[in-house]
């Protein structure tokens, strides 16, 4: 399959945005889990 300049740029941009979103989701979950663990400890 032929891949041109603009389709190539679109793919890398979408991929990068995907990585950023995925990373934020992972860290948000981790913070949430850590927060819950911490809250559990105070009770």
């Amino acid at each position, binding site marked *: 399959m*032929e*891949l*041109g*300049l603009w*389709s*190539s740029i679109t*793919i*890398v941009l979408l*991929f*990068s945005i995907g*990585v*950023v979103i995925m*990373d*934020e989701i992972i*860290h948000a979950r*981790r*913070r949430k889990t850590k927060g819950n663990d911490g809250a559990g400890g105070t009770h």
Partner: protein
Amino acid sequence: MSMEDVSAQDKRALYWLGERLIDYRNPIMILVLAVTALFAYWSFQLKLETSFGDLLPQSHPFVQIHNKYAGTFGGANNIQLMVEVKEGNIFTVPTLARIYKITEAVDQVYGVNHNQIDSIGHRTTRYLRAQSGGFLRAEPVMIGLPKTPEDAANIRRIVHNTESVYGILVSLDDKAALVRANFIEQRLDHRRTFTEVNERVIAPFTTGWIGALVKGKDPLKPDEVSPAVVEVVYRGTPAADAELKAGDVLEAVNGVPTPDRVALAREIGKYAPGTEVSLRYKRGTESKDVSIKVPPPDIEIFVAGEPRLYGWVYNYAGDVFWIFTVTWCMEWVLRWMYFHDWRGALRPSLTGVIAAFWGLGFVHLIGFALDPLILVMPFLITARAVSHAIQMHDRYYEEYERHNWNQRAAIVAAFAELFVPTFSGILTDAFGVLVVMLVPIVMLRKLAIVASWWILAITVSEMLLNPIVYYYLRAPDPDVVMAREKGWYRNLINRVTDMNLSRPGRVAVMVFWVALTAWGAFAMRGLIVGDPTAASPLVFEDSPYNVSHAHIQEKFGGVEPLIIVAEGHDRDAMKDPQALHTMEKFQRYLERDRDVGYSFSLTDILRTVNMVFHELEPKWGVVPNSVRDVGQTFFIFFANSPPTETSKYVTPDYQTAHVTFFCRNHKGDNIARIIAEAQQFIADNPMEKATFKLAGGLIGVLGAANQELVRNDLMMNALGFGTMFIIVLFTYRSAMAGIILLLPLFISNIVINGMMATLGIGVNINTLPLVTVGVGFGIDYGLYILSRVIEEIRVTGDLEESIHIALCTSGKAVSFTAVCMVAGTALWTTSHIRFNAVMGGLLAVWMLISFIASETLLPVIISWFRPKFILKEASRASRRKGLQPSAVAAAS
């Protein structure tokens, strides 16, 4: 003032500079982004282009002769197109008609010099015909399309009796005919030539052939659409079975409109032989559909020559987008896995993209275009930019932890502490590559300037903009920073460092590198300047180009021209029998070389004419002995030809002619040998009225380029290493620093040269810039490690401990940058362009060897020699209080 004071002052200045960059972040950022936007705009104007003149050393005497006579006697940009029948011989009406039409189609390809086409179907290929009354006339071998088997038989008789045609333009087994065309260098457009040859010359007569000649575009009305009109229908073909007639307009294939001959051939070519297709044609005002069976092609067309080769290279150049996409995504994943944070993936990309815009924009600005054969170079430079950014990002996280999660302090500390290795790394890379300018080849000089600028542009993104970007990006979670110091990668680095610095480890390291160096030194003796194989190294051995090239060479002996000019001192010098005898002697002398297929000169015409004039008696097949007889013989042959036709043999004033040797290949050592033999003959056989001048044609100009590379290679290496030594000398104010950093690099260089010789990669104008960039890039790893050793010894006061910490901290980041660089560069091995695949692989191995040398050999050398410029820093040891990072703790 002592050196220690100077060093402390420098460091303070760098911390001050880091603070000011953050203070004045807005104007700096606006300025950098505005200039980057401008360069980005220019980047998108860039085109892929190869300027043939730029590839030649213009000051070389061979190239000057080539330039002077290329328009007259032919240049280096020829295509050879071989038409071969699968069964029988070429002397049938349909095949000869197609050869005639193919020649016509070649003549119409953009950039072809219309007076420099050799083919039995071209007006300039003539034979002598004896007429009644004793007159002799030189007439074209084919004056028009053959119509009957008698016409074909007559052409066969002419070919077999014409020395300058049989075996040269028609193979000795009568199965193939050669069409040679020379291109005007200033009008070379490789992409266009490639497409036009495929669509107009090959397809209509092979995969698109249905047994009828179809009219093409009117050369006098090139912009008008010319419908596909049947010109001649041949018996026993699908076209005849379908009862097509001359004048029928072929409108559509299976309902798809075919507005012209090219579209018709394209549509027919889509179907496999034996497939039934519906063909709509218009006869008069009536349109009709007939069914025809696509026939298997009865002829094959093979095309070789430099314009065709570059056409294939351009055809494959689209690989770059796949490689870019996969590299980007892979590097993002790798960086995310290493830093556990998207900021770590993004920041190096910003550096790479900004540097790339500055670099590519500059390429356009200086009026340079990108050659598809140097596409690995931008990737390599961008990978280097990304590597510097990874080092900086890793250091930023380390300083963030060290400075109790104070973002601003961490940014400034990372900037100040890495300023020296980053900046000197960039300088060594940038100035190291500038030595390529020594070679007087315009392309290499432009490339050296561009690469140098591009590398220097890394300073803008990496040093000027970097602290500002960090300031705006939210600081990472402490967990993310701490996570870097855990896990298998950290454990692996610690374990390898321990092994490397143990006593048996050090001995093993030394033995390994001594053995590898010895192998490299032994293997590099086979390194060839020029191309090391007969096939083109630019594309793979089994690629359509190399298959065609090999097949043409096999059928016709040799097709790569070496043009040696016999430059007369005065007009009519080429009528002098002594000069002509010497030219003939020259032909016989050089034809003895195993790689010279055959030769051609004016004397071949004279001998043939003389023989025909004397009733074909072989004893008269000699050069006449008097000026008068020579002049008369020339008159017989050239009398009916315009000067534009005859000038490809001799200038109209008979002052200058040429001897052309058609060589079997352009291997570097063969070119050198053939040229040496030619020079020896010329020295031993002076002519009274003329002088032989070397050399035009592909072999001549490649010989010139190879000679320049040999002349400058040693000097370039010496200056390259010298430049890097001086920069390191200024950076560390020690000659010893230069020696210990350049030693691993020198060894890597020997090993790579050995590998090039083993893998059959020659030094030529394409490999040279990549190899030179590779030399410079290898030093960066060492700079980061050495700087960290110096930095740590100021804290710990102990050399061994400092080396250990340096390898576990900067060494870890170096190992990760090496992984990224090697993986990114190695992806080029998937390219369809063999040259890019091989160079990508080679540079990946180079980066790997340089990295391993920096991580193993460099620390062992430092530990062994205990250089004074490092040890003196121990006196300033004062352990950092309360800021011991986990990295140092892990290392110790």
